[in-house]
């Protein structure tokens, strides 16, 4: 075999690899949107689902539960995650303790989400008697997402150059003033990117919520109401009812939300880059 033919074969595989890589997401997203979008209507968005084994109704309570859950999750997650990131990036330094903490965070980040679900079920649902509820689901999600937020926020802060900290300190700023006025504002777009990443993962998450949120189709009335998010609703529709088209419609909405969230993340990340390099 000569070099020309080897090159041709290599080209073929490279092109095939690239083509298939693009084909897979396009066909999945395309299929879901094509099957799902025809069933999406204002009525579908504004009607509550009937729940149980019936596939009738829309997704209004599901949308409310999803938003409710994400808001509660963020209220708990954001201060914890950013606080821990500030500690790790600015105060902890490098010792065996912080190396252990970082190792624990990285390990936690790679634990399968159903394990967080089981943990949440055992601790929040059962031991603390929060039952299947938005609170239990949110707390379990916080456990799942903390490593992601801590790591992205810490990285955003360590990307702020040392010269920036020195500039603030040389003006007579205290350590905390330096962190709060020079480091955090500069790192903020990066931190926000991390938060949006977490929102995206919360929207997508099913396993954790399957064992903590219950699955009630009713409108949530308090932190202790059970419920189902979009992805959980999709799961119930697909597994327990014959409403395949409605399952696809829910999937289409979910995909659109995820695409919007990802675009927002990209846009913020590029803003962050521009800000650090002098563009506006």
């Amino acid at each position, binding site marked *: 075999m000569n070099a020309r033919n080897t090159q041709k074969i290599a080209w073929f595989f490279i092109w095939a690899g690239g083509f298939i890589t693009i084909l897979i997401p396009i066909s999945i997203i395309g299929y879901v949107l094509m099957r799902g979008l025809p069933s999406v209507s204002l009525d579908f968005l504004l009607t509550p689902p009937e729940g149980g084994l019936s596939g009738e109704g829309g997704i209004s309570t599901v949308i409310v539960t999803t938003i409710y859950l994400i808001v509660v999750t963020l209220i708990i997650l954001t201060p914890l995650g950013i606080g821990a990131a500030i500690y790790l990036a600015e105060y902890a*330094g490098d010792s065996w303790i912080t190396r252990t903490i970082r190792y624990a965070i990285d390990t936690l980040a790679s634990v399968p989400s159903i394990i967080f679900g089981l943990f949440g079920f055992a601790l929040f649902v059962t031991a603390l008697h929060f039952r299947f509820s938005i609170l239990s689901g949110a707390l379990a999600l916080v456990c799942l997402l903390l490593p992601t937020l801590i790591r992205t926020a810490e990285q955003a802060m360590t990307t702020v*150059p040392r*010269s*920036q*900290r*020195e*500039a*603030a*300190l*040389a*003006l*007579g*700023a*205290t350590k905390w*003033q330096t962190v709060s*006025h*020079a480091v955090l*504002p*500069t790192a903020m777009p990066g931190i926000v990117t991390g938060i949006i990443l977490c929102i995206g993962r919360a929207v997508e998450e099913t396993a954790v919520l399957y064992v903590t949120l219950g699955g009630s189709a009713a409108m949530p009335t308090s932190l202790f109401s059970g419920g189902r998010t979009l992805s959980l609703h999709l799961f119930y529709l697909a597994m327990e009812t014959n409403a395949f088209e409605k399952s696809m419609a829910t999937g289409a909405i979910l995909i659109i939300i995820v695409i919007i969230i990802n675009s927002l993340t990209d846009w913020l990340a590029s803003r962050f880059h521009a*800000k*650090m*390099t*002098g*563009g*506006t």
Partner: protein
Amino acid sequence: MELKSKMETKDLNFYYGNYQCLINFNLVIKEHQITALMGPSGCGKSTFLRVLNRMNDLIPNARVEGKVLLDGQDIYAPGVDAAEIRKRVGMVFQAPNPFPKSIFENVAFGPRMLGVNNKFALSEIVEKSLQGAALWNEVKDILSKSGLALSGGQQQRLCIARAIAVEPEVILMDEPASAIDPTSTLRIEALMQDLKEKYTIAIVTHNLQEAARVSNWTAFVYLGEVVEYGKTADIFQHPKDKRTEDFITGRFG
């Protein structure tokens, strides 16, 4: 007339861990004068500058022995607040390091830290400081633009404006012209002559001509020691030490 000593070090020794980079450093920085520290790279001159405003506090394992006096008060004495010292002893760094904020906010940063929040008072400080740094005419119409959008020379003057906005008594300059173009360098050197009327300046440079051009007093630093110190003209015309002479005549450096 006897010039007042603004800062003074007495038998200063400085260590990074076990490595000693300043050895029995005795130096006087006189008020309203420009004192240049020159010497080859790695001789300890930048380290010395950062000892003067406790910037080295941030470095783990760094240790200071001896005395560093500011108006006769030891800035390393127990109970002295490093932030308070750094407010009185400002610093301009080797590479311009404006914040990724607007020009206005860059200059207003220090005053805000000190609790000035009144918009009118801040505007006044910003204008005065930018004028003091000879940058006002170039930026007065673009105060809301990012400080990073300015040229390197303008950025460095912005950093000077930011430093003088907190009205320090001493300004330390760590090779302020090494990262910018020659025209900007000359502007900054001219600016230093104005600044010394109000402030006391210590500048580190490895550029001989710069030391000769801008300073009133020069210290030649070599291997962590002050080899020779005196009036700039004396140092350059009649160096007493062989090493100073070798450095000035370009035999090493």
